[in-house]
């Protein structure tokens, strides 16, 4: 299938109308020697053949319908209500372009406005943008903004930040001539002593995660107050936003930027993408927001409507003076998350967060009782926790025999955490599946 509707007869008519003899004549600007003689690809497939070919590949992967996942570390296995894809796959949403013609894009623009509201409410911030690529790039964007705002170029990053985020920060920092320094953790939490030591008048911002990569809940109030003492800005990343159904958000502790990943809200794990990055901040930093913003206004009849606004910040107008280069964002993923958050609402999100919290603690308590297993950090946690095991590889293999996907082995990213595993428990893990996990772990010696 090539989805082309021009017939041979029509093609001839069109060529005549253009005044050329053949299609080749349309490509005269390309020198002959640069033209492809033979394309080394497969022959076209019928839809049935294609479906089989692609489906066969999909069958070679473990997936959450066939396996039981206790793995998170930035991407989470949460419940996906049927409603969400049904609505998000209305083609008026997914086959539209960026809403540059607001008169025929009110659906999209209103959803973005609602998304901005959801994120602002959840993070306790004044405003949020229309989305960026993912939690990692959202955090990197905020880092760059703090350099511009403070005119300082040193950034402190908590070691307990998701390693994927750290790698992206490192890369963006290099390109922007920002100097990054890591702050150690102590008992799973950001070390205040280390922070005090490194924080100075040259520090643009401090970046930390909450709950942090180890699942532990940070004392944001103390940390952020400390950061602000030096005129430094704070960036709090949230990779598991379901936690915000229960936890007081960073915005209420006066965090300057709250960034993160919204995949938990109705978006399939999809091997890590596409998810949706969110970016929220205070009113006073509204000029330091990358990408699109939907704003409310009125039309020529005085009727309320929405439009992309403050566009002169963006690359298509400001060009080399722009503070971000983002154009395409994760629009449809923001639509999905917005629909999902509407379904959950005030009561559902709290209930979902409570389920995650309770089940994770049930699992941690049970595992703790096993010989050779211990909860490694004493800090408060949400739905992820670190367990020291008799052997991370052994655990992984043993669990796999029972079609259970183990948590994230920490040693590779944190050599000091040998045989430690970051387990994740969500509302998708029933008591029965947790009990099975514990039964299997019991056999690992």
């Amino acid at each position: 299938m090539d989805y082309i509707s021009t017939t041979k007869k029509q093609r001839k008519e069109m060529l005549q109308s253009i005044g050329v003899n053949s299609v080749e004549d349309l490509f005269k600007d390309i020198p002959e020697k640069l033209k492809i003689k033979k394309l080394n690809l497969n022959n076209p497939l019928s839809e049935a053949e294609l479906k089989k070919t692609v489906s066969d590949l999909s069958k070679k992967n473990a997936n959450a319908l066939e396996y039981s996942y206790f793995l998170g570390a930035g991407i989470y296995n949460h419940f996906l209500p049927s409603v969400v894809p049904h609505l998000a796959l209305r083609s008026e949403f997914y086959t539209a372009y960026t809403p540059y013609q607001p008169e025929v894009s009110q659906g999209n623009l209103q959803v973005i406005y609602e998304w901005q509201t959801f994120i602002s409410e959840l993070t306790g911030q004044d405003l949020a943008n229309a989305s960026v690529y993912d939690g990692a790039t959202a955090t990197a964007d905020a880092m760059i903004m703090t350099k511009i705002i403070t005119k300082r170029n040193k950034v402190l990053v908590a070691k307990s930040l998701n390693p994927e985020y750290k790698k992206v920060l490192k890369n963006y920092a290099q390109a922007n001539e920002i100097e990054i320094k890591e702050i150690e953790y102590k008992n799973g939490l950001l070390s205040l002593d280390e922070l005090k030591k490194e924080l100075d008048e040259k520090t643009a911002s401090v970046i930390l995660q909450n709950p942090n990569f180890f699942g532990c809940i940070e004392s944001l109030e103390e940390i952020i107050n400390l950061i602000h003492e030096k005129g430094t800005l704070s960036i709090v990343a949230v990779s598991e936003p379901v936690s915000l159904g229960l936890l007081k958000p960073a915005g209420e502790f006066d965090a300057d930027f709250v960034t993160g990943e919204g995949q938990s809200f109705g978006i399939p794990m999809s091997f890590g993408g596409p998810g949706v990055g969110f970016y929220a901040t205070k009113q006073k930093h509204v000029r330091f927001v990358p990408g699109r913003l939907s704003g409310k206004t009125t039309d020529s009849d005085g009727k309320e409507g929405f439009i992309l606004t403050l566009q002169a910040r963006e690359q298509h107008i400001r060009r080399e003076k722009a503070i971000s280069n983002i154009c395409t964002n994760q629009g449809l993923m923001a639509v999905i998350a917005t629909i999902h958050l509407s379904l959950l609402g005030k009561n559902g999100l709290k209930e979902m967060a409570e389920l995650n919290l309770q089940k994770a603690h049930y699992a941690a308590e049970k595992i703790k009782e096993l010989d050779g297993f211990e909860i490694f950090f004493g800090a408060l946690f949400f739905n992820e926790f670190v367990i020291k095991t008799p052997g991370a590889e052994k655990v992984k293999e043993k669990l796999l025999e029972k079609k259970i996907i183990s948590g994230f082995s920490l040693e590779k990213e944190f050599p000091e955490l040998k045989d430690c595993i970051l387990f994740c428990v969500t509302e998708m893990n029933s008591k029965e599946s947790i009990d099975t996990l514990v039964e299997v772990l019991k056999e690992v010696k």
Partner: protein
Amino acid sequence: MDNPKELHYTKEHEWVKIENGIGTVGITDFAQHSLTDIVFVELPEKGKQVEQFKQLTVLESVKSVSDIYSPISGEVTEVNESLSDSPEQVNKSPFENGWIAKIKLKDEKELENLMTAEQYNEYLKTKEH
């Protein structure tokens, strides 16, 4: 709107009014008109050193961004904070309430590089077609 006699003008359509060694800077009525509705004025920082005809700041309309150049060299001593909340003053009152910054005049001789109101009016005539 007439271009006030006591001001000095640039080819980029900025004006400066000198009082006691301090130059108040803004954009002309012609400039505000061609920029259309100003929605944001990026205020320069107090204490910033600027050079004559080099970028002072940036103005935004809905769909464009324009550089504003400084008519004189010197230090920015004051900025018009009220433009943060009501940038439309640049459109409504370009020569009065819509002023952008005050700059401490470094070199009086620089004024010779600027146009008088009369010269600026002539200059505009060359632009109007």
